[in-house]
Each structure stands twice: as C-alpha cells, then as structure tokens.
C-alpha cells in the first residue's frame, strides 16, 4: 500500500495534548547521558592544539618532545588525517577545518592533537608541540575582505556566478541572484523610496553543552563513536569518508544533546578523536572547552546588507532590491545565497531582485544557526519596510498586510506558494492585546515578520509492537527539544492507543536505515510522517492477524480507535479485538508485529511568523530593557503545543540576545577577544520578560496531520522587531546589530548633534 502523505482533516485524540516527555524523568534526575557523560574502560583524554594566529603558514610542526612525555599515547597532525576526499571540495574544506594543513586560517584553527592518560598530561603535551608559523596579513571584516587590496585567504578561489570569468582570485567565492520582474521600472512607479545599509555582527549558537565525543577504533577496523550531534548518520558518513573507513564499520550513537541550533550539524572534533584512537589503539574522549567552542565551532555569518524598497502612496510596494554580503569563515559557503532567497519571502512583489556575495574572512567556518542567514536579511528588510510605512504614513502592520504574500503568490526566490500563514499571523498580531498595551516614557513598540523554508528529507522509522501491547518507536532523527514526546503522540494517535503505551527512542546508525540531520526544522515534520506511515503499515498487519483470529477476510476488518472491528452484517457478533489482544496472540498468528517506513519527506511547508515587542531605552546610557514580547507563528498543526511554545520562546530569546548584546569581538591581531560566557553575554533570566505565544494552525497540505516545522522561524523576526522598537523608542533608526548600549548612545548623540 502506498503511503499518502496528503493532509486530511480529522479530530485528534492524542495530537494536540501536552503529556510529559518520555525522556523527562532522566533529565530532571541527572541520569540522562549527554556527550561528556559517557566513558569507556581504558579511555584516554584527547586535547587539540589551536592556532593563536588569524592567518599563518604552517612551516613545520615538531611533535617529538610531546611524544616522549610519559603518559602520551598519540600525537597527530594533518599528516595523520591525509586527504582522501578525492576532489570533493566541500569535504576537503571540512577536513582542513578539522585539522589545518598548510595554513592556519583563523584564531582557534586546529593544528595538532594529543591523546594521553589524563587531562593534565594532555595539557602538558600540547605545550611541548612546537609549531613554526609564518604569520600572514589577515582580514576579519566582511566589507574589508571584499576590497581589492584585502589579504587573500585562498588564492585558488575565483568568484563564481559572474558574467565574465574573473582573471584574479578573490575572497568572494560566489555571487548569486534571485528575483523577477524589472526593479528599475518598479522604482519608476514609486512615490516613496527607502534606501539604507545595515550591518550585523557574528554570533554563536551558544548551546550550553560543548562538543563532546568518545571514539573507539578497534584493531579489526571497526569503530564506535558516541557523540552529541544533530545527525549521527551524517557524522558517520563524514567521519568514515575523512578517515578512509567503510561507513558500515563505524557505528555512531547519538547521546542526549545539550543544544545544537544548527551548530551540531558539522563534524569538528570527531574525526580527530577517531584518528587519535586509531593511532593510540585505545578509546579517546574529546570534549571541547568553552573557549574552543567559541573560537573553533559555530558561528553564524557577519553581514553587510543594502536595501532599497519603493512604494506608491496607496501603500503598494512597487520594487524591492537587496545586496547581501555574508561572511563564510575561510571556506566557501552558500550563506548569502540563503539570505538572498529569504529576504523578501514575506511579500507579494512584482519587481524584486536580490544579490548575494559569499565572502571569505579569517574567522571560524560559518555554521548553520537556526534558520541560517534569514534573521540578518529580515533585519535589513523589515527595518526598511517599517521606515517606508512611516514615510507613507501608514500603520506598519497595515502596510505589511497590504503587501503580504498569499496562496498563489510567486515568491521572491521562485516557487509559487500554497496555503501560507503570513497574512493570518499579521492579522492575529493586529488584534493581539499586546498592540493596545500602554507604553511608558522612553518605550517603543516594534514588530516584524519572518520566513523560513523548512526542510524534509530522508527518514527511516521502525515501530515495534510488543506482546504486551506496548509500542516502541525507533527514530533516526535526533531529539533536540522534545520530539520523542511528539512522535509518541503521533504513533498513539494513528494506532488509537494511549500515549503512555508508546515509547520513542533515537536509534544508532547500526540499528536503523539512514536519516538526514535534525535540521531545517525537519525533526518532527519528517519523522512524524514516517511514524504515521510505519503505524499504518503495522495496522495492516494487525488487521490481518485479527482476520486470522476470526477466520474472516481481511477486507472485512477495519481499524478503529485502537481496535480491529469486523465489518458487515455477517460478522455482527464478532465484536472487537484490541491491539493488546492481537499482540498477545501474535506468537500463534505469525510472530512479532511491526511497521517500518522509509521515505523522503517532501513538502515541508514554508513557515511564517510575526513578532511584537516593546523596548525601553535609557537615553542617558543606551541601555535597553525588553518590556513585552509576543510571538505569533503558524505551526501547521501543533503536535505537542507546549514544546511548540518552547520553540517560539527559545528562538525569540536567542534573537533578543543577538539583537541587543551578542557579538564576536576581534582585536587588531585577528584574535577573538571574548571567547567565554562572561564577555559573550547571552540573555539570562533577569534580562527577559515572559514571552507570550500564539500558535496558528494553517494545515500543511503535504502532511497527513498538517504539521509544519516550527523550530527555526522564531529566530527570524526578533532582530528586526527589536530594531524597530528601539528605533521608535530612541527616535533614531538603528542600522547595526547588536544594538549594544554604546551603539545606541552613539546613534542618539549623532541624531542630536546632526
């Protein structure tokens, strides 16, 4: 039977309730095991030596002294991780990022690693490694890196996507362009035009759990890796490829994960730990320090964006244009391209053009961070949209409603939308009580919209029915924030049994077929689709078994509310058989009952949100306080509404940190000056108010229950919403994120002085 993923309306019993998650008790009692909580007998401690230079040629590495230190069992450099990538440029970059080859490309770039009997010996060994660097000129700013005289980070890079092939290498790896219509003509019809430039600084995902793994390579060539990751199947592929192993010989178990937000979708320390273990012949545990997490993992792009939008007096946008420059770290990426796709996705535009430039800088390799690239583009666009509304004299919400994309709109990045939630979130925001809450002195209100694509992807799920009627659900998408609860709800819903009888686990790479990462807000969307499909396959077998028990044709058996029911007059006296009864008899009717599903989840369904916030600005110090915050977002269908709210609130809080405080600060020497939570300050409890949420449910037509991904969109609007609020409170347009007190004060003073 082919699985039909299309939405069909239904009354839900389990889905939409708020039970306690299956992994909850372990997490409140300290029993849950995260990346660093696992140990193996005889394990060594791994540590990584990192470049103190932003850009340097590595002339020579002398490890001989470190090797002789008692207790040191292995020392590795790039020579121990030879290039096996066979022309695969993206994999080569991953390899080079794990262990620098000829050049160190940023402060924190790994150059060597040791495995020793304890942490102290490992630390001592690092000090005994002598690296001969030739320091090169560096560049960390995205605009500086684009200039002609900027230090070249990779002289083999020639800008792709230009009409003429360039003759000189450049730090710009690619130009991309999206849009339709004729912006030149569009601006000709505009009565008002707003044109502005914006900048955003680099931020880190800031997960509280540092990267951690235990690697164990056996002499027979098999290996085990225990690791905190958003995608253990992808880690297996990458590690196996980089180490020249067969993927099937590497078993990867994903631990509980202490936050990822995109930052745990990339291998960093894992290939190093495996290489150390291979060389030492013993298990190796490698845990990053917080300093290493900041210097060598994450972060997001720093950006520089120009926006131009024109509108008629009646409030119709006639043309919109954006140029977006995103830093990628020292390796090619597609970050500006994503920014260019998302920038104007909320609007219905006849004439739109966006151009993205990917820019190399001497900073860590950019990693995905929750709706990667979208928040910065939204900041620039939504700030300009607000300003334009003001110039026209329209309410910013009305102006957006007037121009909002609808079902059938051709999006600025190409596809035509199905049913979407931008209009409804705006209308809900308009009538939200927050809009009428009184504002005090020095307080301003701001709002903004956000868009994210959402991903689907390859997914594999097993659903096993025990003889006692309990159901165990094995999924391959890592649970980053409660998805085991959501997926148990979905299995319970489909089978018609109680939530308590289902237990979902995340299976390792040897127990289940391949699964893509938990990224792109795909975890619950795609695994719930696979769970529904697996449950339907199990129901088919349950019906067959019931038919056998009754000795009637399976065509006369239907599945209703957790029971097989005989259909038709002639079976009127047969009654019902519960799942439990069928399971109990399974030993005599053909053995264990299970349902499997392997699919590519398509049609993840785009997602939109509108945020409203009130900010108070102290005009004397530039300090800010978040007074009220409201998130309105479309979830398609909220499987476990409490966790959906949690995603909305968490994304908003990260956005607030990004907007007001968080930034990578580099010194003139190209070194990161704030690699710790003291100086890279993420929001704490006393910085925030309660975060109000409103969940809209506009069913996704491509999912049986209408589910859309919910994890990422919530970080897209905050930068802009807060910038609009601060601008309204301070009476000056803010164009540089984060809006730290000195920046706000400088803007206020410039306005007063000018």
């Amino acid at each position, binding site marked *: 039977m082919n699985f039909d993923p299309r939405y069909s309306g239904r009354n839900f019993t389990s889905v939409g309730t*708020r039970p*306690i*998650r299956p*992994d*909850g*008790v372990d*997490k*409140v*009692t*300290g*029993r*849950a*095991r*995260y990346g*660093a*909580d696992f140990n193996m007998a005889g394990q060594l401690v791994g540590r990584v030596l990192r470049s103190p230079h932003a850009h340097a040629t590595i002339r020579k590495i002398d490890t001989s002294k470190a090797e002789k230190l008692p207790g040191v069992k292995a020392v590795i450099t790039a020579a121990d991780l030879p290039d096996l990538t066979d022309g695969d440029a993206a994999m080569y970059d991953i390899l080079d990022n794990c262990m620098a080859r000829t050049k160190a490309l940023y402060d924190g770039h790994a150059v060597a690693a040791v495995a020793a009997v304890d942490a*102290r010996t490992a630390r001592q060994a690092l000090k005994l490694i002598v690296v001969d660097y030739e320091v090169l000129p560096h560049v960390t700013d995205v605009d500086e890196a684009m200039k002609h005289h900027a230090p070249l980070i990779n002289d083999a890079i020639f800008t792709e996507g230009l009409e003429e092939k360039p003759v000189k290498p450049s730090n710009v790896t690619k130009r991309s362009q999206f849009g339709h219509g004729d912006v030149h003509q569009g601006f000709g019809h505009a009565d008002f035009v707003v044109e502005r430039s914006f900048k955003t600084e680099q931020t880190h*995902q*800031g*997960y*509280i*759990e*540092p990267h951690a793994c235990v690697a164990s390579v056996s002499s027979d060539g098999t290996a085990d890796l225990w690791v905190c990751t958003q995608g253990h199947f992808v880690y297996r592929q990458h590690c196996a490829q980089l180490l020249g192993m067969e993927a099937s010989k590497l078993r990867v178990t994903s631990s*509980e*994960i*202490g*936050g*990822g*937000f995109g930052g745990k979708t990339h291998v960093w320390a894992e290939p190093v730990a495996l290489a150390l273990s291979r060389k030492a012949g013993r298990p190796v545990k490698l*845990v990053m*320090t*917080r300093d290493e997490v900041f210097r060598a993992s994450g972060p997001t792009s720093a950006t520089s964006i120009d926006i131009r939008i024109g509108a008629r007096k009646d409030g119709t946008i006639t043309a919109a244009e954006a140029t977006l420059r995103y830093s990628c770290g020292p390796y090619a990426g597609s970050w500006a391209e994503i920014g260019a796709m998302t920038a104007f996705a909320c609007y219905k535009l006849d004439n739109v053009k966006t151009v993205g430039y990917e820019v190399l800088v001497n900073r860590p390799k950019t990693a995905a961070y929750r709706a990667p690239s979208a928040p910065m583009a939204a900041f620039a666009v939504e700030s300009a949209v607000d300003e334009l509304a003001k110039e026209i004299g329209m309410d910013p919400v009305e102006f957006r409603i007037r121009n909002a994309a609808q079902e059938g709109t051709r999006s600025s990045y190409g596809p035509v939308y199905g049913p979407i939630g931008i209009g409804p979130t705006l209308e809900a925001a308009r009538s939200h009580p927050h809009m009428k809450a009184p504002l005090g002195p020095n307080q301003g209100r701001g709002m903004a919209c956000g868009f994210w694509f959402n991903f689907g992807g390859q997914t594999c799920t097993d659903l096993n029915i025990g003889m006692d009627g309990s159901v165990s659900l094995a999924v391959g998408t890592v649970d*980053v*924030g*409660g998805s085991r609860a959501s997926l148990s709800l979905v299995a319970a819903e489909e089978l018609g049994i109680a939530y308590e009888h289902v237990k979902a686990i995340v299976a390792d790479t040897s127990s289940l077929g391949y699964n893509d990462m938990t990224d792109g807000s795909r975890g619950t969307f795609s695994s719930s689709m696979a769970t529904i499909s697996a449950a339907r396959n199990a129901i088919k077998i349950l019906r067959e078994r019931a038919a056998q028990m009754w000795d009637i044709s399976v065509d006369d058996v239907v599945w209703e509310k957790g029971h097989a029911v005989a259909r038709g007059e002639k079976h009127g006296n047969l009654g019902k058989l519960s799942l439990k009864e069928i399971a109990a008899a399974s030993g005599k009717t053909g053995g264990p009952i299970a349902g499997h599903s392997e699919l590519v989840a398509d049609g993840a369904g785009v997602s939109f949100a509108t945020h409203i916030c009130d900010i108070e600005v102290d005009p004397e110090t530039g300090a800010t306080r978040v007074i009220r915050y409201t998130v309105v977002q479309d979830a398609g269908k909220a499987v476990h509404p*409490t*966790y959906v*709210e*949690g*995603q909305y*609130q*968490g994304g*908003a*809080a*990260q956005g607030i940190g990004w907007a007001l405080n968080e930034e990578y600060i580099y010194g003139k020497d190209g070194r990161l000056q704030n690699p*710790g*939570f*003291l100086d890279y300050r*993420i*929001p*704490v*409890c*006393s910085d*925030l108010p*309660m*975060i109000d949420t409103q969940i809209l449910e506009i069913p996704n037509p491509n999912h049986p229950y209408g589910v859309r991904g919910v994890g990422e969109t919530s970080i897209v609007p905050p930068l802009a919403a807060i910038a609009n609020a601060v601008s309204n409170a301070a009476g000056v347009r803010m164009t540089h994120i984060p809006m730290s007190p000195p920046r706000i004060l400088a803007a206020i003073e410039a306005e007063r002085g000018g």
Partner: protein
Amino acid sequence: MAGIAVSATINGDSVEYLCQPDETLLDVLRDRLGLTGAKEGCGTGDCGACSVILDNRLVCSCLVLGAEAEGRRVETVEGMAHGDKLHPLQQKFLEHAALQCGICTPGFLIAAKDLLAKNPDPTEEEIRFGLAGNLCRCTGYDKIVRAVQDAATVMKGA
C-alpha cells in the same frame, strides 16, 4: 602524583576519595564518583550548569576544588528525589516543559532549590534574579520561571 584523601558527605552518603590538588569538585563528582548530573558548560563560573549546594551555599562546582569538600556536605541533582518520588521542582519542571535539551536542568533545579529554601515565596522578579547565574539557551526562561512559581506554591502547601 600522590592524591589528597578527602572525606565528604555527598547526597547524605559518606564518601571518601583521592583527588589531585588541581582537580575541581566538578571533576571529582563527574570523573571519580560517576555523578554526571552536574554538567560543565564553561568551567569558568559563568553558566551555572555545574551548580551544587555546599553546606547550604549554592556554588559553581567548577570553581571549587575537590579537596575543599573535606568534611563538608555536598548536594547534587542526583540527591533531589526521594526514591522514586520526585522533588516538587523536578515534577513541575516536567509538567511545565521547563526543559528542552535539558543540559541546564540539573543546575537550575539545584539553584531553584536553594532559592526556595531561602525565600519560599519569591516574586517573579526574585526568581528571575535568583536564577540569573544559570544560563539556558533553549527555553527563553519563561517555562522555567513558571515551573519554579508553581513548585513554590506546592511546597508552601505541603
């Protein structure tokens, strides 16, 4: 190197261990005693994931030496429940979904326990400032604050 012999009371049990002079209490708990409930998020006293109560005082165990626990009482998240009966804070954290990834949860539970011991009826603001030493990157704190408020109500009634 010879270790330092330490006797301490951990979650009510007398415990003896050897540790090096540069080992933190967090290292001892996690690596020597197998109590991995306290987490290391930073190692510098900035995240609170390693929070424990040392003789009625909330501390970051990453900033305390293992040797300093000599003769003292240490309470960790592993000691909060009584048998299979969860502490009201643990129960309310579950009911309110005050955890997403859960890595910060042991630290928040210990910090909240300490807060409620000193102030059984805190205002929202007192909770927010009382827990400001603990970082959570997932939740935005909303559900954590509500869970603590709810637990305080339950504990007052008990």
